[in-house]
């Protein structure tokens, strides 16, 4: 007799997990969108939305690791690092396919180093992550201006464009990257000692350090990884855009990456969350934007609706504990 109630409870628990709510919201929006303008939920359009979402999703990967590591961790320099990745990639490769591998290496080295600077500031100099990464983004925009010198930057090489936008089985290359990345991060969090250390640090850094985790080194590395991921995303973004049209092309990723993580059900306190949720979160945000474009309302109204829906989604499961508990 107990079985049905257990099943019901389990079903209730599953429905109440944030990522499931986000997924249900995605389906709901697709359904309503299809009612309003038929063809909204077609495979082709969904793939298009996924492609745009993939860049947010990739950047959110680094953000996700940092937020998971706790200590009010946050990286607000990712947007500018995306731009830097695109620009360094363009400058080093000079539109030549042969230089592509050097360009990728250069992007990785530069952005990883800048991310490490973030990490050192946060862990060893105890600068609040919010201000540290924000100031770092100011430094990065200066570096970008020094590199470009106000002149245009060489665009993407043919191969890079083919890798990102070119289609294999009707699916653009970037989505394969995203899928591989998602599997990698999921594996990293759940099946490696690094992941266990990370989750332990995020839950309670003091007990983690007592258990032998080198917390400062771990967190510094996280910022390095986040910077590197943002840089490589920028490199791929260059392939998607084909050229660097302005030096603020990555700025929009900064806060949206944090929001995708939160909408995906990771608490800003750290120690709990899954990258699958982040993937759904990134998709949901992009879907919402496309939906608001589809229903044809003024841009200002669209912006307001986006903000309100965002608040409603966070209200549904992003709330803190009650005082009484």
């Amino acid at each position: 007799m107990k079985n049905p109630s257990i099943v019901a409870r389990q079903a209730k628990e599953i429905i109440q997990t944030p990522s499931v709510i986000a997924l249900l919201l995605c389906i709901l929006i697709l359904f309503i969108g299809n009612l309003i303008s038929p063809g909204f939920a077609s495979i082709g359009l969904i793939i298009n939305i996924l492609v745009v979402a993939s860049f947010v999703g990739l950047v959110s990967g680094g953000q996700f690791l940092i937020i998971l590591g706790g200590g009010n961790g946050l990286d607000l320099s990712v947007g500018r690092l995306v731009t830097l990745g695109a620009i360094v990639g363009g400058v080093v490769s000079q539109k030549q396919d042969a230089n592509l591998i050097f360009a990728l290496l250069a992007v990785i080295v530069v952005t990883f180093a800048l991310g490490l600077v973030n990490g050192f500031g946060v862990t060893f100099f105890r600068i609040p992550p919010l201000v540290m990464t924000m100031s770092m983004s100011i430094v990065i925009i200066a570096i970008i201006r020094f590199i470009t010198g106000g002149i245009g930057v060489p665009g993407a090489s043919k191969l890079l464009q083919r890798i990102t936008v070119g289609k294999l089985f009707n699916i653009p290359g970037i989505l394969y990257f995203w899928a591989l990345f998602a599997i990698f991060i999921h594996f990293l969090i759940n099946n490696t000692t690094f992941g266990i250390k990370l989750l332990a640090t995020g839950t309670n850094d003091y007990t983690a350090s007592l258990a032998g985790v080198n917390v400062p080194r771990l967190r510094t590395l996280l910022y390095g990884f986040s910077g590197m991921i943002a840089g490589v995303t920028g490199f791929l973004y260059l392939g998607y855009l084909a050229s660097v049209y302005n030096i603020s092309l990555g700025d929009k990723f900064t806060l949206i990456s944090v929001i995708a993580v939160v909408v995906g059900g990771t608490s800003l306190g750290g120690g709990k969350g899954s990258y699958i949720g982040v993937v759904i979160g990134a998709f949901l945000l992009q879907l919402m934007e496309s939906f608001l474009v589809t229903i044809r309302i003024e841009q200002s109204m669209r912006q307001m609706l986006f903000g309100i829906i965002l608040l409603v989604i966070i209200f549904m499961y992003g709330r803190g504990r009650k005082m009484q508990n």
Partner: protein
Amino acid sequence: MRRNSIGQPSILKKHKKWRSKGSKMKINKQKAKAWMHSFTHKPYFLALIILIFFFILLGFIERRYYSLYNLTTKIRLWMPLLLVTLGQTFVILGGGLDMSVSTLLALVNVIVVQVMMSLGGGPWHQIIAIIAGLTTGLFAGFLNGLLVAHLRLPPLISTYGTQIVWGGLALRIMHQSGGEVPFTWYNVYSATIIGIPFSLIILVLLMLGIHFLKRTGYLVKLKACGGNIHGAYESVLPVNALRVKSYMLSGLFTALAALCIVAETVTGNPLSGSGYELESISAVALGGTSLAGGAGGFIGSILGAIVLKLINDVIFFAGLGVNYQVLAQGLIIILALAVGGQLTKQSQKRGVTMLRGGGEQ
């Protein structure tokens, strides 16, 4: 004799009669040392040092910087950031964060201009417009407070959400910059009374108001709330009301900043104030206020905001390009906070040894 690093007067009085001249000097020295100690451990000490350094540097680079005309102009231009930073300080002291100040600035700016233009522009209409602007600020702050305190949403994300909403609303009210307010606004705002600029008088009045708030005990309660919210709740403090009030104060100060911008530009701009949220948070952090909440002060915030503005002037008058200006701004914030972090770390360590009975020699 008992060593006294704090300089307690009662003990000093007791031994006054038999104390020789030499020991008196020694005690004066100790008093001075104690005063220096308390001064160098003020949270805004670092910002003050940087500020003085920049002022001296500017004096060397550009003599005319200290002309009365330039300084009054500068204060006028700094006012919006100063006001927003003061508002942000309330929220951060309460353990929150207000990302919505940037677009709220634009929203109030647009509302003031639009209300005045649609009413006609007479003296009474201007007052109504100002009241409408201030009410908007208070109400927006109230909504932020509701989201953060009562609905328990994370401050960063929820105020970013409201930032998007205010921005959309501002664009809805006014599609592009335009409209005008009477030029008397500018004349009043840039006026000087017995040589003192009007904007400085506003600032001093506001600081007096904040001092009054300190007297009522609000700030102490707010800091308790930011330092340890559960402890504050268990001490029967009205935690939610305190936090809502902090957001309302932030909204009010932002509305005042918007009025300053309207008076300075004499027009409405739905995109004004972009970047103010991050700049004000940096200024607060530079002023020695802990971003985790619970510790810090308003003098520091003012100094921090002025330092941020001075960086640009220093680089500009030094003849370096705009790129260096940006680079220096980022690097100086990072360096200042790194040094500040090390200082607090040391003083914390010292505090611990004192608690353990080690004491200072």
